[in-house]
Structure formats: C-alpha cells, structure tokens
C-alpha cells in the first residue's frame, strides 16, 4: 500500500464539524456583530416599514361588523384585556385584584357613548397607567376588540323588548328553568 493513500482519509475529518451551533445569527440570539450584543436590531429612527400604507389604511377604516370579526375580537380580548378589564368589561379583573389600579367599567355611560375609534386608539397608544398594546395587537385586531367591547356593552344594556319571542319567554320565566 502506498503511504500517500492515507491522505484520502482527510475528508473524513469534515465529520468532526459541530453542527449543533452554526455560525449564523438567529433571532433572539446574542451576536457579537452589534454594539448592544443582540442579533435583532431595531430599525433606525425615521425608517418606514414597507407595509406602512396598508397598516395606516387598516387603522383608518372600521371593517364591517361580522360574526367572524366578533369571534376574533372575543379571542383577542380574552388574551390581552380580560386580565384587567374582566370578562364582562366591569374592570374587576384578576390583576386589579392583586393591586393594579382599577380600570373604568366599559358599561359606564361615558364609555358607552365613546366611539369605537377611542378604543382603537387606547389599544394602540395606551391611556394613563395602561400601557400601549400596539406592538402585539395589529390594526385589524384592534377593530375586532372594539367590536367585541360593543357587544359586551350591549349585553348589559339590551332592552328586553328587542329579544326574540322564545328568549323573552325564557327570561320572564321563573328561575330554575
């Protein structure tokens, strides 16, 4: 056997490469490339996102009220608002019970008169001690939550006369039915 044939074994060394950690920067990882040591960088001041026009358009116009919009709103409300504002919108959620300032009742006269735009703005920019949720609730979902808050308000203030006959009968029946 010729000694130089041993050289053919050299490529096998490639198998020793540790591939569990690869020289690339994944999101949320630390990175030596940037001054603050994070792989994810905030866009420089004044940058305009490519989808900014679509975002603004979605914010400007209220989408039509549909069952799908309400369902989405209910889901998002339960994730982001219920901990403080409570399932009924009364403001007696579990976080205020642990010492957070008491949020106002959505069924108060003032907030029932408020426009849906008000709710959308509060979600986007916050209000007093309530922080903004704009980073986690995109425009479409803000309108969906606003729509659901309308449904919550209606649920506490619907005139009995507006109910369908069957529902009306059940409402007026003695308790226990």
């Amino acid at each position: 056997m010729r000694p130089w044939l041993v050289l053919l074994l050299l490529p096998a060394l490639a198998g020793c490469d540790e591939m569990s950690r690869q020289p690339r920067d994944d999101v949320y990882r630390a990175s030596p490339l940037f001054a603050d040591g994070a792989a994810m960088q905030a866009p420089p001041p004044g940058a305009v996102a490519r989808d900014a026009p679509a975002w603004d358009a979605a914010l400007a116009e209220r989408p039509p009220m549909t069952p799908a919009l309400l369902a989405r709103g209910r889901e998002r409300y339960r994730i982001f608002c219920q901990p403080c504002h409570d399932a009924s919108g009364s403001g007696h959620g579990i976080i205020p019970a642990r010492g957070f300032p008491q949020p106002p009742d959505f069924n108060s006269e003032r907030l029932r008169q408020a426009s849906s735009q008000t709710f959308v703005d509060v979600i986007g920019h916050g209000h007093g001690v309530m922080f903004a949720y704009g980073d986690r609730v995109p425009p479409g979902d803000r309108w969906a939550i606003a729509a659901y808050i309308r449904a919550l308000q209606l649920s506490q203030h619907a005139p009995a006369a507006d109910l369908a006959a069957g529902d009306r009968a059940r409402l007026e029946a003695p308790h226990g039915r």
Partner: protein
Amino acid sequence: MPQIFKPSADTWLRTFAAVAALGLIAAALFGAGVARSDWVTRAGWPVEQPVPFSHKHHVGDLGLDCRYCHSDVEEGRYAGLPSSHVCITCHSQLWTGAEVLEPVRASFAENRPIAWKRVAALPEYVYFDHHIHVARGVPCVECHGRIDEMPLTWRAKPLQMRFCIDCHRDPAPRLRPVNQVTRMDWTGWASDPANRGFGERAMRRFHIQPAKLTDCNVCHR
C-alpha cells in the same frame, strides 16, 4: 524447550474473553441509556434564570394566556420571548420595589434585552416551525408539558428526534381544536364521546399526510 503456559492459562484466557465481551455489552447499554437519560436531554431540569420568572404564578394562578407574552407563536417560526416592556405593563404598578424585578426594570430603562437562558432549544441543524403546529391544533402542552405548574421553567419532553417522529407518524390522537391550543389541562377530553373521531376529522380537513411528515428533509433542510 520449557512450557510457557501453565495448564490454567486456558481458563484464564476464557474468563478474560468472557468478561471483556460482557463489559462491551454493558458499555453499549450504558451509553444508550445515558443518551436517552434526562441528564443528556435535560428533560425535567429547572434552569436558573436572571429573573426567577414563574409560569406557575403568571399562567396557573393569574390565568394569563401564553400569547400575552409569546405573541408570535401563531404567525411565526419562533414563539418569541417577551420584551421587558411586556413585563412592565403590569410591573410598573405591581411589586415595584421588589429586588427580584430589578433586572427587568433596568432592562426596560436602558433598553437592553434580558439574557434569558434557553430551555427548549434544538440543535441548529434542525428546522422547527411553531406556526404550522399551532395552526393544525397541536397544543403547547404536547411539547412543553404543564408549563402552568412550573415555578421555574424546565424542559418537559426530551425533544429528541424520536419524540418528533413518534407524533409525525400518527398525529391524529394528539390533535385538538385550533382555538384551544394554549389550554393546558386536557384530562377527560379524549374519553368524552363528543370528541370521538375528532383527530381523524382534523387529519382529513387539513390534508395531513403522515407518510410525508417523516421525510428527512421536513426537519433537516
């Protein structure tokens, strides 16, 4: 010529060969055992974090939804870890003097991320995507366990290749309604007659084909 080996040499040789063979088998079994042990996979080992964040408190007791903090889980490959802004939405008013929260306040004030230690990370040659699993109704608890009972987060499942493949071969019994993926406690769900055949219906509805889900290039791209 004198005898080199005594008559007992043969016995010695046989004994030595037998012990060596047994030793090899034991070493192989031990190696395989170690490779699957919690010590290697880190399953069940709580991880010390810069802030002793408790899912038990925030999810179990306060009832927060996972998506309040891991808000990218439905759209993206990564679930994402919350920025300190998210913590401060509550901790601007709650536990404001607490020593344990000092790193969170400093991180918020100086706009510098908290360096959480990873708990469930995969090797980087594996591709994983949360969005597809969440959109098909694979609940968080299947892979992350009862997070709502963890005072400090630990890896609940081994997350080795066999764990992924076991489900990819037959996902049906582990699929759940898509709008309840963050629910933690599923006791009694599978035995409820109302849910009989749910998994099979979901498989048809989403056109899930287990035969293709075990191809190597699904996870190694």
